[in-house]
């Protein structure tokens, strides 16, 4: 394989299978006894007998997505919580390099400020890119809210270190070493990592953001992909996508839907009724337990650690939000779930229509879909992925190819990964 020339990628929506790898063995007593599923939730709840085989099951679900020809699988990094048992997503990505063959392996992302030196991230992604024959998408994140508590680091300093760390990593991948790096927070005499990533100039880079203009400008300037990490309804996603595309153009670059990603949860079955019946318990497990402390008002929500935004962005947030406004985790019944517009449950037609709106109205070009929801069983996760791959994915691909061809035509020459 000639790795010097990036493979062209089809000009259509990319569809990924995302796994959060939650702890799936909580019961009703959790709600009563604990104010959060994060940071302070006692790890005595981690039952080692039940844990046996859990990672294998979750990895199998992602390997199956690759067999079904999803465009890739997605992992992310969280610490000290029941929402996602992936403190080191790179370990799982390494396993997936050996069990998947085709799709991308998206790690969204490595938390830069947790590293003593961000060079470590450059090294690990380069290893993964070599091990996967150039299939890695490198995500970087500053840590959303819980991580400064989990790792006792300063949220406002992390924001500064984050972009400096990203620049160090890109330098490590693109400038022939050894070079030096001299920043405010990181100074290195020798930047010269072995191995180097196969993808040139470097693996695609994705950055999660939650609508702050600062992040959008940084991402736009560097021509990375912006992943909107706040779940939300179509209108909100559309606003963000419009704002981001305007910023991309303002800084003199060209917008394409592949520069924008969004997370959804999907459960698809033969009919709307069957789908709801099969996944309802799991959906509420996810919203009530996994989101407690994150996207839920009840309990102690740590998602917006102080200093994570500039004062200007904080003011913007205050002006555009209401204290105690309902979030996904506050859903009390199935109507609420529908209303939130982020968890799509139903027949192939129903799910197609929901997702298609985001593609056609908000120009979202990377659909990142959580199939394993809460404590959904292995069999139902596989079934939902299979029906989706057979009956929803082909339509989304064909229709988005037509749409992007009209709105965002690209020539083969510049058709390289974002």
């Amino acid at each position: 394989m000639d790795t010097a020339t990036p493979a062209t990628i089809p000009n259509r929506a990319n569809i990924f299978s995302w796994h959060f790898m939650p702890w799936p063995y909580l019961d009703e007593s959790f709600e009563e006894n604990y104010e959060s599923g994060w940071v302070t939730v006692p790890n005595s709840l981690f039952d080692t007998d039940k844990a046996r085989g859990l990672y294998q099951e979750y990895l199998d679900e992602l390997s199956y997505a690759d067999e079904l020809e999803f465009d890739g699988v997605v992992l992310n990094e969280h610490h000290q919580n029941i929402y996602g048992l992936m403190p080191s997503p790179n370990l799982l990505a390494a396993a997936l390099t050996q069990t998947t063959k085709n799709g991308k392996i998206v790690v969204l992302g490595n938390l830069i400020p947790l590293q003593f030196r961000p060079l470590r991230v450059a090294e690990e992604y380069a290893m993964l890119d070599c091990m996967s024959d150039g299939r890695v998408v490198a995500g970087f994140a500053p840590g959303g809210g819980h991580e400064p508590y989990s790792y006792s680091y300063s949220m406002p300093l992390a924001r500064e270190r984050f972009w400096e760390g990203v620049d160090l990593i890109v330098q490590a991948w693109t400038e022939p070493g050894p070079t030096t790096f001299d920043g405010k927070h990181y100074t290195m005499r020798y930047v010269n990592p072995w191995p180097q990533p196969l993808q040139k100039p470097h693996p695609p880079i994705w950055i999660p953001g939650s609508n702050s203009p600062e992040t959008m400008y940084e991402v736009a300037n560097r021509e990375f992909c912006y992943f909107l990490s706040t779940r939300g309804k179509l209108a909100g996603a559309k606003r963000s996508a419009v704002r981001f595309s305007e910023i991309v153009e303002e800084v003199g670059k060209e917008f394409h839907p592949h520069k924008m990603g969004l997370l959804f949860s999907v459960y698809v079955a033969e009919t709307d009724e069957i789908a709801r019946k099969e996944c309802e318990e799991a959906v509420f497990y996810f919203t009530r337990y996994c989101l407690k402390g994150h996207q839920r008002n009840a309990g102690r929500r740590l998602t917006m650690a102080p200093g994570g935004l500039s004062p200007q962005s904080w003011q913007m947030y205050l002006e555009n939000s209401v204290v105690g406004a309902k979030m996904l985790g506050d859903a009390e019944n199935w109507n609420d779930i529908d209303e939130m517009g982020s968890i799509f449950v139903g027949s192939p037609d129903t799910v197609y229509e929901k997702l298609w709106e985001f593609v056609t109205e908000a120009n979202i070009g990377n659909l990142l879909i959580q199939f394993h929801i809460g404590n959904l069983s292995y069999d139902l996760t596989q079934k939902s992925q299979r029906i989706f791959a057979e009956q929803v994915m082909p339509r989304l691909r064909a229709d988005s190819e037509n749409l992007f061809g009209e709105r965002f035509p690209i020539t083969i020459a510049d058709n390289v990964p974002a």
Partner: protein
Amino acid sequence: MKKSTIQVGGKTIEIHQDGSGPPVLYIHGIWDIHTLQADPFPFHEQLAEQFSVTMPVHPGCGESSGMSDIVDIEDLAFHYFDLLDALDIGQATIVGFSMGGWIAAEMAVRNPERVGKLVLIDSAGLQIPGALIGDLFMYVLHRDGGVMQELRELLFKDPDSTIAHEIIPDGRVNIPDEVLRYKSVTLAARVGWEPPYLFNKKLLGRLHRITSPTLVLWGEHDRLIPIANGQAYVDNIPRASLQIVRDSGHSTIIEQPADCIDRITAFLETGILPASDAPALAPAG
């Protein structure tokens, strides 16, 4: 209060000045004038009735610039030396509250000759086993979509009192004050979230360098910075006295302004340190 700005080491610093009499530099805390609200509390007004008070706003807080220049407590200590230079003050009498007291202590161990009499009120800065500073960064966030009870518990003797609810209501205060508060907590997070929380491991071993007579005022029921921290300051500063303010939590200057002013005035006017209150008198928590 007369409001102006001065240039300090490339930063524009908002400064409030008022009163007459001996000069006093007041270094504000995380929840204080300039940070909870722009206006002074009765404590600050009463202090200005006794002294010529200068109350600068920390870099990055209020209308001061320069937040990104500050990455640790030493940066703030040197910023305040630069400020003394800018104001042409050779030796300052300093009153510092909470994080402001920590800054004052960091100044006094570095350049003892620049600090005259020193007043530390419920001050951060030390790491005392069994009396660790509370997790203000966690409790500054709402619980159950708007409840701020735990922050009130950290800051006030009686979290259910009218004043506690007035200053830290559930939900939000007005947006300008919310932004002031966010800036203050952001600055505190820059210098005090790693290591957690709000201490410098090296400070305790340096306190012996302080030459100032030091009045250490502490809220009897301070749950953010337990009184053992005040005791440690007094045990390690050569000339210091611990004065326990009854019926008060961390927000001593807000909960017991008159008591604070009386003690500060008596000390600053005479330079005489009263005998320390026995720490055993202070109930835990």
